[in-house]
């Protein structure tokens, strides 16, 4: 369900001339990591943490595989970036202490933290940063997402040992945001010559290193003894993977897990209501559950039809039914942690009578038949059933066809062989996907594409305002139907503190987590 983005909008964080100010506001790590760790699998009292997660990564290499499960483990924990996004969506310093942006917004100068070093002991200096950017630029097999993000980079040069100058081909504030994620993960340039296989091992500068990947079971991170910052609070952190959400809940209830990274079945929330044993965090994610409409379909190319479908669905009731009322009701491709977010949920409120009228106006008084091809993912299948029954009431016959995800990708996502579908888009700030006519929605409204491009190239304040207009345009135009935004439901043992409530990045950030 992790869809990666093509292009991303500009983002609004005020990064004016220096990030130093941000340093103070971003340093809010959970205080006082103590020595009592979670129970390890082997039952000994160690300073360990066991995290339950859903999708197992196929490898430890995020540069050639887009699976979101890889940065979930690696980002900020194992590999660090020049800048980091905190749980409120704000850009903070990490390997770079501060940075400057030229007046035309095409030149970034990063001042590196002189203390920073890789697990091997080598410094994270300007030469290492340049080597990383050059390495990705030279890599023909890089994922499409990273290639696109990297395309705006013209050159990277070391000004001296601690300063790096990056020139862009055009202004793009999204680039800095991308650098806070997979694109910006700094690898020890000596990794290859040290014989490190990056698909199985790690060569980062973070507080943890990849210790072991037990195929089909878990990924184990070990404390990096040489970490340059605040030392890791756990000797070992294990991400255990569960194909079955019930098995994960049972393991948590039985005390085998310290954290459920994101509860997959919101109905199960009540099982963890005992606050003396468990803490429940309800935050936001970047995951918009999008009911995609194929704008190439003759009926769906008509605005009245798209409006009618939107108004025929009681999305509040849908979220209550399908996701236990957890999540955020949204009306466009933006979530509350996005700087340009505004509540557009009521753009076209639930009104089945009006929906029928609109369908009549569009020439579908006698009914309309649409193929509803959804991937077999709990929220998608359940939402589809709910939607189909409501559409029937306004005379639209939505034929549900459930597709295994590995079949859904080539048929629906790649070939666009569908009329309506449902999938969550979990990438951050992924509004720009609607600018691409070839993407599976086939929306490609030139006004939107132009607005989006302008927003990305503008300065901060203008950029955010333009992006807000772009999001509003998508809502008014019913480019898709936004069912709801997925919640971030984290369950921890009562003794575990510092887990971020919001999932603002791809990382399951361990750097603030501690155990009492």
């Amino acid at each position, binding site marked *: 369900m992790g869809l*990666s983005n093509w292009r991303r909008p500009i983002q609004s964080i005020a990064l004016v001339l220096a990030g130093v100010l941000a340093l103070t506001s971003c340093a809010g790590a959970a205080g006082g990591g103590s020595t009592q760790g979670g129970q390890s699998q082997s039952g000994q009292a160690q300073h360990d943490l066991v995290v339950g997660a859903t999708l197992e990564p196929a490898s430890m290499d995020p540069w050639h595989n887009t699976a979101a499960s890889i940065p979930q483990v690696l980002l900020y924990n194992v590999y660090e970036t020049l800048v980091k996004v905190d749980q409120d969506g704000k850009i903070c310093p990490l390997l770079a202490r501060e940075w400057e942006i030229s007046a035309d917004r095409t030149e970034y100068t990063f001042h590196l933290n002189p203390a920073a070093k890789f697990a091997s002991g080598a410094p994270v200096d300007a030469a290492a940063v340049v080597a990383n950017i050059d390495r990705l630029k030279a890599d023909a097999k890089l994922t*499409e997402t990273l290639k696109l993000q990297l395309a705006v980079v013209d050159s990277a040069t070391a000004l001296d040992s601690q300063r790096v100058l990056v020139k862009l081909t055009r202004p793009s504030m999204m680039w800095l945001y991308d650098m806070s994620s997979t694109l910006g993960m700094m690898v020890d340039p000596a990794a290859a010559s040290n014989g490190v296989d990056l698909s199985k091992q790690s060569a980062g500068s973070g507080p943890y290193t990849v210790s072991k990947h037990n*195929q089909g079971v878990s990924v184990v991170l070990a404390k990096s003894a040489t970490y340059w910052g605040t030392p890791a609070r756990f000797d070992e952190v294990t991400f*255990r993977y569960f194909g079955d959400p019930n*098995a994960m809940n049972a393991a948590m209830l039985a005390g085998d897990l310290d954290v459920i990274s994101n509860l997959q079945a919101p109905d199960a929330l009540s099982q963890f209501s005992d606050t003396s044993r468990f803490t429940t965090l309800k935050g936001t994610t970047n995951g918009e559950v999008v009911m995609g409409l194929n704008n190439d379909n003759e009926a769906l190319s008509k605005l009245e039809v798209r409006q009618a479908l939107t108004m025929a669905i009681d999305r509040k009731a849908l979220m209550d039914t399908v996701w236990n009322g957890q999540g955020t009701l949204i009306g466009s491709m933006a979530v509350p942690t996005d700087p340009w977010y505004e509540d557009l949920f009521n753009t076209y409120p639930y009104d089945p009578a009006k929906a029928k009228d609109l369908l009549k106006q569009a020439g579908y008084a006698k009914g309309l038949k649409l193929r509803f091809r959804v991937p077999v993912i709990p929220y998608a299948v359940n939402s589809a059933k709910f939607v189909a029954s409501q559409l029937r009431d306004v005379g639209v016959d939505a034929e549900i066809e459930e597709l295994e995800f*590995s079949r859904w*990708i*080539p048929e629906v996502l*790649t070939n666009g062989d569908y009329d309506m579908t449902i999938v969550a888009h979990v990438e951050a700030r992924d509004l720009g996907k609607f600018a691409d006519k070839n993407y599976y929605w086939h929306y490609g409204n030139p006004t939107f594409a132009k607005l989006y491009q302008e927003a990305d190239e503008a300065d901060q304040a203008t950029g955010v305002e333009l992006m807000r207009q772009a999001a509003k345009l998508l809502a008014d135009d019913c480019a898709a139907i936004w069912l709801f935004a997925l919640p971030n439901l984290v369950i921890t043992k009562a003794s575990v503190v510092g887990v971020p409530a919001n999932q603002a990045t791809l990382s399951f950030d361990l750097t603030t987590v501690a155990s009492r």
Partner: protein
Amino acid sequence: MRRVAAKLAVFALTLLGASALIFLVANALPGDVAQVLLGTDATPSAVAELRHELGLDRPLAVRYLEWLADVLHGDFGTSLLSGDRVTDLMAPRIAVTFWLVGLGMLGSILVALPAGMAAALKRRRWPGFAISAAGQLGMSVPAFWLGILLVMVFAVGLGWLPANGYVPLGANPGQWLSHLVLPVATLALVQAAVLLRYVRSAFVEVLDEDYYRTARSIGWTPFRALLRHGVRNAAVSLVTVVGLQVSTALVGAIVIEQVFTLPGLGSLLLTAVAQRDLVVVQGTVMFLVLAVLVVNAAVDVGYTLIDPRQRGGRV
């Protein structure tokens, strides 16, 4: 000698047929590993390029024969997704499935044999009815449901055992055992419920035999008579059933491995199918087929050990 040669020929032909079938079915799955490897953002041209690079665009027959030749040399290939050798991926998982199925079958026999004998002996009184009814109930309970029930009681409720997961025997024998108790019990109980019926009817047949009545008439207790004369006679049909049950247990293990998140062959197979890692799918299914055939061969040998009459043909 001729019988052995004939059996071996059938064995080889079955394997060959199975390999062709496995290859065809695996390759008929829509979707492919190139798409999975490149992720959801890949362009169709990049997918086509990778398919070419992986050789997935060559004719089916060519790929089949190449794969077959490699398998005959003991090379199951390398995973298209992780690049690991399929044999390396399977080895630790074979151990997990072996313990689960082996101990599960052993457990089911230990439960079904005495219970079935008792049900046969007391078949007209309430203990007999009670045991048969329990068996019926056990047969109608799905394995995953029983697994969840056991987890809820013994892991979540009582906290005696871990809910799921696995620790290898070599890493920590105590933990290994505690992680296996619930899945093995689940498999054993479900299998025992089926086996129980066969044990009961096999012994009921023995009760009508002349040799049993003779033994009883010279003063042996029913239990002694059954044990001395009945077991060996009932065993011939029971070995067949147990042999067949190993195959169903291997399939049942796939479900149980999911419920208990055991890293066995079943979960490897499920993941590989979902990711369209066909080389791993083929290798795993091939191994399972081989395992079933070997068990069947062992059943054949078992007959000759149990029943001296089968040895007449001079093996």
